[in-house]
């Protein structure tokens, strides 16, 4: 990606201008200040909620659920995807079941999860777990299946056992695509944690935003959304850092081949 310093600066100016327009439109009463409270009030509410610990609490509750569902899905579906990529019969046997379940939109899983787990953490974790399953599973499977056969044969010729060739050859070769699945799932995780907290919860950032709206605490609602935007941005950046570290060898290889 090209880095153009000037364009970033322009963008910042626009961002400030947008905030300024928001502020003045609200202050001048051009739009109902009940619905669009001045930006300065939103920001001061945001900092107030941070210093009072309210936001931190809600974010931590949500993050805990998100992490549990996301890592459980990775833990189960990466190995399953690898196994499906290696064993043709396993893929063939599961294919129809997967293709039947996959078109179900993730939010629709929320009622089922409520039936099983009630309104607790288990419900959210289950919803996230299921929704992350497909991107992780199918990307891992694709990655493993499209590995150059020669790589695997070479490993076998050098006397690597099945287990070692999975760890030393198959997993690294498929890791760019596994990462793709993990990245897609990260976005899905954040969406689903908010959805499940809006539909059935008494805490978490998703609940906090919807509840603020229902109590007409509009400034607080916007502050919650700002938190969520920052959270999404931070998670993306963390993943990006992790990604470029884990796949540094791959990036280097691609650059050399170009």
């Amino acid at each position, binding site marked *: 990606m090209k880095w153009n310093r000037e364009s970033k600066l322009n963008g910042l100016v*626009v961002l400030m201008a947008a905030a300024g327009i928001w502020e003045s439109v609200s202050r001048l009463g051009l739009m109902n200040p009940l619905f669009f409270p001045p930006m300065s009030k939103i920001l001061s509410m945001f900092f107030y909620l941070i210093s009072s610990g309210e936001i931190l609490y809600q974010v931590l509750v949500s993050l805990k659920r998100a992490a549990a569902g996301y890592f459980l899905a990775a833990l189960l579906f990466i190995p399953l995807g690898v196994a499906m990529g290696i064993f043709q019969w396993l893929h*063939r046997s599961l294919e129809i079941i997967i293709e*039947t379940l996959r078109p*179900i939109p993730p939010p629709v899983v929320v009622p*089922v999860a*409520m039936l099983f787990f009630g309104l607790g953490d288990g419900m959210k974790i289950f919803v996230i777990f299921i929704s992350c399953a497909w991107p992780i599973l199918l990307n891992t499977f694709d990655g493993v299946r499209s590995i150059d056969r020669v790589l695997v044969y070479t490993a076998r010729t050098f006397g690597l056992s099945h287990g070692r060739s999975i760890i030393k050859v198959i997993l690294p070769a498929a890791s760019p695509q596994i990462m793709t699945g993990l990245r897609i799932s990260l976005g899905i995780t954040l*969406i689903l944690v908010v959805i499940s907290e809006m539909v059935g919860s008494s805490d978490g950032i998703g609940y906090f935003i919807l509840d603020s709206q229902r109590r007409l605490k509009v400034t607080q609602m916007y502050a919650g*959304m700002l938190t969520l935007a920052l959270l999404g941005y931070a998670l993306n950046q963390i993943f990006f850092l992790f990604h470029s570290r884990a796949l540094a060898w791959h990036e280097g290889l691609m650059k050399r081949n170009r």
Partner: protein
Amino acid sequence: MRVFSRINLPGLLSFLALLFLWEISARSSQVIQSYFPPVSEIIRSLLSLIFSREVVAHLLATLGRFLTGYLLSALIAVSLGILLGHFRFAYALFEVLIEFLRPMPSVAMIPVAILLLGIGNAMIVAVTLYACTWPILINTIDGVRNIEPTLIDTGRTFGLGRWKILKEIILPAAMPYIVTGLRISLAIALILVTTSEMVVGGSGLGFFILDEERSLSTTNMYAGIVIVAVLGYGLNRLFLFFEGKAMAWHRGATARGLL
């Protein structure tokens, strides 16, 4: 013969085995039955539901919101994407704004939409439109920015006007990207419609499923999920059908190695 060899026998067997296991375990235990009613019961209620006026109304409500939000967002996002992709200055201005709004999960817009638009169709359509816009917009911008400048220059050399260049060069050349964005948004639209229906209630399949769960008619809840899944699957097939028609030239061109 070819049809037979294309049927995935182990897949079909394991699928049927799963359904069979579901059926007998549901029939053997009351506890399991309260979570997983027998498959045969689900199918029976599915058959009665799809002919009931109530469910058809829910289905049509969901479909109407879906189509309105999705098609409007396609129209807006593609036009905006072409503008932002073509005029570098415009893109430089809006890049930060886009990067700032994009990471926020779009479902967070539901409360704002309720506040501004109440709990009717308009709110659901607005949220869907907002959420679907991002993938289409980003992909369209990418597509337009990745066009070979030679293509446009060639067009200019041949004396094509701005409008012609847009229609004959930019749009077709960016089409593969635009289609990718449209496909991603298809799934997102259904997510947003069902979620909003769950949050605001009243009508639609999302509301129906949640309502059946709350009134503990588990069989109907599963039947509702099957209907939504079939709807999602059907919309996806429909999209692939149109994509195949619209993009036939592209596949032909790339297969011959022209691009």
